[in-house]
């Protein structure tokens, strides 16, 4: 009988083309590379400069999401590009995909969306796969029990040419959370709490496996929210073992296996879990009952507190930038903009949570709220349920899919000094516009803050939580 092994170990072993030696890293096979317009053009140029062919176009899937406007095209079909260069970048991806035979979901595709929303929705993300993308939030796909990580543009080129990556084997970090979440506490609060606990460098060099009853109880969107932010504690990837929730999400998706292949795939996927007795290099255990609705108060995602708490002392630079006083509450701070979207929190269940708050309420005077669905599919599903009407009636903007204000590349930014309560993943200085102050939060907390115009604990609004 073989040694008990972790989920990570099992996926790794399945993809070793050449094992690691003392002198050289492992050559690891990549099942799927996702592409978007920002981190791919130089990789395609390098491929051409070297006269190399794209080895496996069928193992690539592309979308446009980062540089794209989130306002609809005008009556002439023209988009409101932030710069001519943004348009050129998108056109360059069109040309590269056309030339190399890559499936691209561009403007005319009903599936187009944020790369980490679209891939799972199409069923392209499957348990046991290795998935890469030139984007640090690729760990999102780990929610399906896939080993998924962000890479740089040079490595994007390696995968284009060889379908392989050089990788040294990471360490494993087990994060176990047990128990039910309190009302008003969401998967976003869980991952913010975890990052606050282990720190922004706490996962460096490691692949995280999240396990325990709290994650088992989450739907796939919640698991994606958790895995998405693994990079914010420095981890290379985050994983959750697949189960019935995973299988029922994937069944009948366009790129998922079908018929007899489906049954065989599920039988295989059931083996993808950490064996009893297998050990992680490090284990962190957390009680779900101690997790509150969480927000960031500072300038990186490890500066986390419960929304009802007081801002801690000891980081003068962060406090200065955020214009906050140590010892003061963050709740009650005036909010200029609320952003609900990004690869962290733009899926249907996130939009439903936000709509539950907006229903019958109004965005506060002096506050602007932007709701940006993660994909075309999510947008249509939300509209079929009438969520768009709830957002519009509340005075929020309902936009076209894209990364939008998470990183502001497409021109969706706030003004210097403004405070943004954002469901995205990074509160770095200037990330959402020069001088903009970002508070990361769940969709519930963000929506509650929109209707009060102040940073607000969603549990304080009647009828928001059951």
């Amino acid at each position, binding site marked *: 009988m073989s040694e008990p092994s972790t989920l990570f170990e099992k996926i790794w072993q399945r993809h070793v083309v050449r094992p690691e030696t*003392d002198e050289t890293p492992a050559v690891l096979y990549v099942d799927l590379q996702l592409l978007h317009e920002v981190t791919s053009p130089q990789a395609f140029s390098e491929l051409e400069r070297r006269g190399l062919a794209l080895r496996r176009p069928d193992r690539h899937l592309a979308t446009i999401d980062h540089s794209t406007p989130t306002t609809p095209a005008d009556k002439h079909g023209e988009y409101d590009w932030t710069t001519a260069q943004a348009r050129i970048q998108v056109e360059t991806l069109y040309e590269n995909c056309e030339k190399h035979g890559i499936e691209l979901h561009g403007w005319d595709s009903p599936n187009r969306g944020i790369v980490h929303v679209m891939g799972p929705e199409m069923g392209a993300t499957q348990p046991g796969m290795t998935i890469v993308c030139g984007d640090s939030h690729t760990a999102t796909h780990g929610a399906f029990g896939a080993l998924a990580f962000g890479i740089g543009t040079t490595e994007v080129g390696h995968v284009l040419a*060889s379908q392989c990556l050089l990788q040294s084997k990471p360490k494993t970090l087990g994060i176990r959370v047990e128990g039910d979440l309190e009302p008003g506490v969401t998967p976003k609060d869980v991952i913010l709490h975890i990052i606050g606990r282990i720190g922004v460098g706490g996962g460096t060099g490691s692949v995280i496996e999240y396990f325990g009853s709290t994650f088992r109880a989450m739907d796939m969107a919640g698991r994606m929210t958790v895995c998405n932010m693994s990079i914010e504690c420095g981890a290379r990837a985050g994983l959750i073992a697949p189960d019935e929730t995973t299988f029922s999400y994937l069944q009948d998706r366009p790129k998922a296996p079908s018929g007899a292949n489906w049954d065989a795939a599920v039988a295989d996927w059931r083996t993808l879990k950490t064996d009893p007795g297998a050990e992680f290099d490090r284990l962190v255990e957390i009680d779900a009952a101690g997790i509150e609705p969480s927000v960031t108060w500072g300038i990186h995602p490890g500066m986390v507190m419960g929304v009802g708490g007081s801002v801690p002392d000891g980081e003068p630079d962060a406090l200065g930038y955020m214009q906050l006083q140590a010892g003061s509450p963050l709740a009650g701070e005036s909010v200029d903009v609320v952003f609900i979207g990004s690869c962290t929190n733009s899926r249907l269940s996130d939009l439903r949570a936000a709509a539950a708050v907006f229903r019958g309420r109004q965005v506060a005077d002096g506050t602007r709220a932007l709701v940006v669905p993660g994909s075309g599919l999510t947008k249509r599903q939300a509209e079929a349920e009438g969520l768009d009407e709830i957002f519009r009636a509340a005075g929020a903007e309902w936009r076209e899919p894209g990364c939008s204000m998470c990183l502001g590349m497409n021109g969706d930014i706030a003004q210097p000094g403004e405070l943004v309560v954002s469901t995205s993943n990074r509160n770095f200085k200037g990330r959402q516009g020069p001088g903009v102050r970002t508070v990361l939060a769940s969709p519930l907390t963000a929506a509650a803050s929109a209707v009060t115009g102040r940073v607000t604990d969603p549990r304080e609004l009647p009828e928001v939580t059951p």
Partner: protein
Amino acid sequence: MSRALIESRTFNLPVKNIDTDQIIPAHFLTMTGREGLDRACFFAWRFNEDGSDKADNPLRNHDRARQQVLVTGENFGCGSSREHAPWALLDYGFRAVISSRFADIFRGNALKNGLLPITVDEAVANWLLDNPDTVVAIDIENRSLKVRGYGRFDFPMDPFSAYCLVRGIDPLDFILQGADDIRRYEESHGK
């Protein structure tokens, strides 16, 4: 001078957790080439919105010709995977960065572009942060950092990256030398 041997003075940015949005803000990422990122490097630290120089720019006294080694606080390069970060640092004029910890993706991206990420113990990093404009010599082949007036230290670097840097070997060539292995893997695993 060989890429494997750098002798230069240090320049300090004593800040922890410098993320890649600080190294190069996202609005510079719409480019489709990789040249000309000198001005983009630490843009929001150096320039006002209107493009004028910032009075409190922490790099204002940096001597680019003489200080090609950046010393920073821990967890340098966290955040986004943008390879534009090492491209910008190189275009600006840095050839190596010394820190007590680097974010994984940044370190990999830097190595692939010949920007040397040198990890040192906290004590060494702190000494350097206390002693700006120190002469250092970085020897990749022997993975050794010499700090004038303080000592000589080994630094970790995976042997393959060091080999590629010293010999000028391209990692993609190494992967493609194993094309038969890749084909066999695809056949035997039904890929």
